[in-house]
């Protein structure tokens, strides 16, 4: 299993769910697809039309930013915790 924690900014897409568990999937792209199947529309908020992580969205695997790993193709393992957060933009 992996645990996915979502920013409150996405609560409109998740009916208020901010944390969930799902069966382990191979990578972040698969995880986003699975999230979208459960919460239709959320996928396109997180990734663009070509399934690339949006510029101002950060996905952390445990404490590592996926943009420092293999981005949407970052591998996932059983027990991982994934955080989906908006980047700090501006300021």
């Amino acid at each position, binding site marked *: 299993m992996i645990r996915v924690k979502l920013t409150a900014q996405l609560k409109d897409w998740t009916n208020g769910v901010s944390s969930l568990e799902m069966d382990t999937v191979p990578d972040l792209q698969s995880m986003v697809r699975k999230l979208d199947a459960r919460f239709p529309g959320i996928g396109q908020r997180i990734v*663009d039309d070509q399934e690339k992580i949006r510029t101002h969205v950060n996905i952390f695997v445990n404490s590592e930013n996926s943009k420092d790993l293999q981005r949407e193709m970052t591998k996932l393992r059983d027990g991982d915790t994934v955080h989906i957060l908006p980047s700090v933009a501006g300021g």
Partner: protein
Amino acid sequence: MTKGDGRQVLMVGTRKGAFVFTSDSGRRSWKLSGPELKGNETYHMAYDRRSRTMLASVSSSHWGPTIAKSKDMGKSWKVSRTPPKFPKGSGLSVARIWQIKPGTDDDEGVVYAGVEPACLFRSDDGGEKWTVNEAMLNHKTRKKWQPGGGGLCLHTVVLSERRPKRILIAISAVGVMRSDDNGETWSFKNKRLLADFQPEKYPEFGTCVHKLAINQSKPDTIFQQNHTGVYRSDDAGDDWKDIRNNLPSRFGFPAAVDANEPERFYLAPLEGDFSRIPLGGQFAVWATDNGGKEWSKLDSGIPKTSYFTVLRDAMVTDQGEPCGLYFGSTTGQLFASRDQGNKWERIADGLPPILSVSVSSA
């Protein structure tokens, strides 16, 4: 004649959300509601009279662009779960939705969206699910299309009840394209449009159209504000004629046609490409009563010092009698005229930067 009881609804899209202004029947006082869709760039809005639905193009800097719909005149909104999206493998991703255009009365449920990078999308269910226009996506010249200053954007969609299969679109800096078969095929309509920033001065495509406008009673007459001039076509874009004449500048962005007088056309000229500020430091609308032979300045009520930027979608005419005219600035001022631009009144100040102004009778 004025539709309905004369009340107008102004839909004002701003950098920070949507505002709705509703007038009394005389268009003398305005009631503000909003902002809704707070914090979201609301790039364009439209009212679909067929379904009594307000539509908005909204974009979050984090979560991307989508379409929102309201069934209660902007009080509450529902965001599309399936907004315009390019197919996988195209290499394209929707960056912004520039224009929302409800279809003609006979096309129940049809709504068009013009997006960046330039392409047209169509919805057949009132704006929930969207399909890319394959003919435009796969157009043989697409790889040669170049962006204007605002990006490679399809910013204008023109439809006519009297020409139900025709779609006219404008792309910066590609030019005008027309389909006569509901978007199955497209042809460029840029004859005699100057492109003096190109090696070829009159190319088939690569002109910089800024805005198109028509009066629905004369659907074959198209007015155009271009980067390089002001033009009209009387054959739906097959040929264009320069109608700048005594206008003080060839450059500007917004364009609108009077609802009742099809030869009365409104523009907002700017000094020129490299400064893009109002002439003499005072924003003014210019109008022609005779299809472009002569132009006159309409600035009564506009501050003498008004370095306003009015974006291409931020000036619009209503369906009233006499025609009302509205513009909003990126400094948050909203102006209205209920007499064809002859006298202006500021009806709001201090709004977020205004990106678009749309209007519908209430």
